[in-house]
């Protein structure tokens, strides 16, 4: 077979293979929602993070505005210190409320931000003061039973 035809098919094969990798990255994976522009970090202390994981989304009104980058146990306050990277397009007031929510009944957990009314905005490295822990099913059932018992 002539050399040029072999070259043509191999070239086509390599282009198709690299194209497949690109499709995997862009269409199947989350390369597009990754590092879209600059981000700034915020931290927050949570009493209980439940099943929150690193790389979990940070959402506001359901829109993904950032990702959780680090989760540590803080020895100063004895609770969880969550670090998140927020896209610089989105600024939030100082009194924003951060709570750990669950998508659906059994879905993954994420951080929901509900903006407050303050004029000052959160900046790089700031700490979100108002936080709400993850909803833990056992605690809820326990509280429910306790309330029931108190009623009787």
């Amino acid at each position, binding site marked *: 077979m002539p*050399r040029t035809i*072999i*070259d043509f*098919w*191999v070239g*086509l*094969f*390599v282009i*198709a*293979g*690299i194209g*497949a*990798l690109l*499709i*995997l*990255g862009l*269409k*199947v*994976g*989350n*390369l*597009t*929602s*990754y590092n879209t522009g600059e981000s700034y970090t915020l931290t927050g202390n949570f009493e209980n993070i439940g099943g929150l*994981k*690193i*790389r979990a*989304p940070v959402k506001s009104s359901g829109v993904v505005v950032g990702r959780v980058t680090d989760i540590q146990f803080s020895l100063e306050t004895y609770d969880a210190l969550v670090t998140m990277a927020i896209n610089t397009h989105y600024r939030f007031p100082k009194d924003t409320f951060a709570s750990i929510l669950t998508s659906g009944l059994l879905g993954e957990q994420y951080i929901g931000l509900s903006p407050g009314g303050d004029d000052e905005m959160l900046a790089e490295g700031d700490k979100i003061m108002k936080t709400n822990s993850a909803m833990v099913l056992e605690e809820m059932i326990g509280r429910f039973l306790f309330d029931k018992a108190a009623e009787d």
Partner: protein
Amino acid sequence: MPKRIITSIQAIGHRVIDSIWRLGRAARFFALVLLKSTTSFLRFSLVIREIYFVGVLSLIIILVSGLFVGMVLGLQGYETLQKYGSESAVGTLVALSLVRELGPVMAALLFASRAGSAITAEIGLMKATEQLSAMAMMAVDPVARVVAPRFWAGVISMPLLAALFSVLGVFGGYLVTVIFIGVDEGSFWSSMQNAVDFRYDIVNGVIKSCFFGVAVTAIAVFEGFDAPPTAEGVSGATTRTVVTSALAILGLDFVLTSFMFRGVD
């Protein structure tokens, strides 16, 4: 009676020593191929020719199998997930299982039986018809001229074939669940994109397929080069290539998976 026991113990020892000896030869041959790879990169047209034979000619079987594997995954996944009312997660299921496991493993198995066996048979036959000795007589190193280009062609083709397999698989899953069954298209793609991480899932899949490419082609070229120079020897070597590669792929897959996806962050 004691003599029979002694001979059977000897037979076991003989087999063990033989297989260790063969393993050592395989390792030395692999090192030799790597050492003599410079010619393949200086005369890259040799490698391109081999990519045509092992990569381009394997495309049809890889693409068609990928499509059908994805379609079956879509059907089975839908069947199970709709019992829990979460059929929109079928995209996640199809994409994750293809990108992490099925794409690299199935593509490597198909590649071993389609291209690995061909490489072994070709090199074995060259040896049986004394073409390799003739090359050596003309001061052309057969390892550099015949073996190394085939090795590198396999190593380059494998990740590309695995990626194409995964893409066709995802397309097959899309075809069955979204077009035929009618799962919502938006939730199919968005649940997939939420779950599939580029670094964690896709890059790990590509790394896996690179390892499989090295393993399959190293086994194929060694079996061909080591085959007894008879018709029977070549046929036996071809069979061993397919069997050994399949075992190597599956074993290696477990080892790599346990390193990559340990379930802890």
